[in-house]
């Protein structure tokens, strides 16, 4: 699963602070969005995103570049999020608020309708099991390739495609069920 070698990997490994700053700048927003989508809690998402970068730097000396830095970061974040979700306290709060950015602020009518639809989708997405939720977010929000998603989830590429299909089918079923009287 070797992907194109990152041009800044050597800089990061040598402890180049500017390269590290660029890395954080490039991936902080997407990682927080991904984690918020998985966890439903923006504050927890921020904490885990911070922990993701810390773990990344701690793992850097052993990182051989077998996958992209992006995949590596998402994989750390994914594992942290699954561990977090596995805790009983989080399971108790599973029903609830949409992730960061899901609340609609006052806007023109057309935008409100669009925002309402987006919020419905996000809520339905939150009802999926974590692994299905992850694959859908990684594909549709984070625009990862199936190869990258396979790396994040530690599964074969074909399995990642199958997960995606079944996740979308599941989501569609939930949306249809929600609209039935």
């Amino acid at each position, binding site marked *: *699963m*070797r992907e194109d070698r990152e041009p800044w990997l050597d800089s990061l*490994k*040598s*402890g*180049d*602070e500017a390269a*590290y*700053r660029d890395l*954080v*700048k490039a991936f*902080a*927003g*997407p990682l*927080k*969005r991904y984690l*918020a*989508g998985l966890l439903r809690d923006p504050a927890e998402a*921020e904490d885990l*995103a*911070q922990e993701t*970068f*810390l*773990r*990344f*730097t*701690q*793992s*850097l*000396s*052993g*990182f*051989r570049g*077998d996958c992209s830095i992006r995949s*590596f970061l998402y994989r750390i974040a994914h*594992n942290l999020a699954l561990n977090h979700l596995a805790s009983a306290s989080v399971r108790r709060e599973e029903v609830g608020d949409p*992730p*960061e*950015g*899901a609340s609609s602020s006052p806007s023109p009518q057309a935008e409100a309708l*669009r925002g309402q*639809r*987006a919020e419905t*989708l*996000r809520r339905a*997405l939150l009802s999926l099991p974590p692994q299905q939720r992850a694959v*859908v977010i990684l*594909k*549709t*929000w984070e625009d990862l390739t199936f190869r990258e998603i396979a790396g994040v989830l530690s599964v074969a590429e074909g399995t990642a*495609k*199958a997960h*995606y*299909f*079944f996740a*979308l*089918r599941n*989501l*569609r079923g939930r*949306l249809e069920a929600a609209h039935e009287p």
Partner: protein
Amino acid sequence: MNHEGYMARALAGEAGEGKDHSASCASCREELEALRSLEQALVEAAPPALGNDIWEARVVAMARPIPGRSGGYPKASVRWSSLAASFLLAAALAAGLRLLPAQNGHPAQLAETSIPAVGSLGWDVSRENATLALLQVAEAVAGEVQEEEDGEADGAESPVFGGENG
């Protein structure tokens, strides 16, 4: 390959069998169209990936490269060193207190009088100095532990994934 397999491949954008099958299977074609529509709606529903300069600066500060250290970054083993140092520190303080003479059956107070001799070492130091000396020993031991860990960590595999990155 079953219908689901065809659809999974077609949804993933694979040309060939999946597309051919959906062209001839009405139910698969219908479901595939619905799933693609849902996929597009999800893409449009993505919340913005907001940046936060203050938060990012804090993250950079937390894990910034350390000058002079091989690889530059703090390592996971630092936490173990901190734990070891804390343990030694606590042990040193407890030992320091135990060495102090009891007064009227109660434990002695710190920094009150001089200790004529600490154990069999024959040191004539104040209690503060005894505690400081023990702290220095703890720091020295913790420093040695850290150096050993650094040496091991330079050749270590990833602590997050057990060395498997791909």
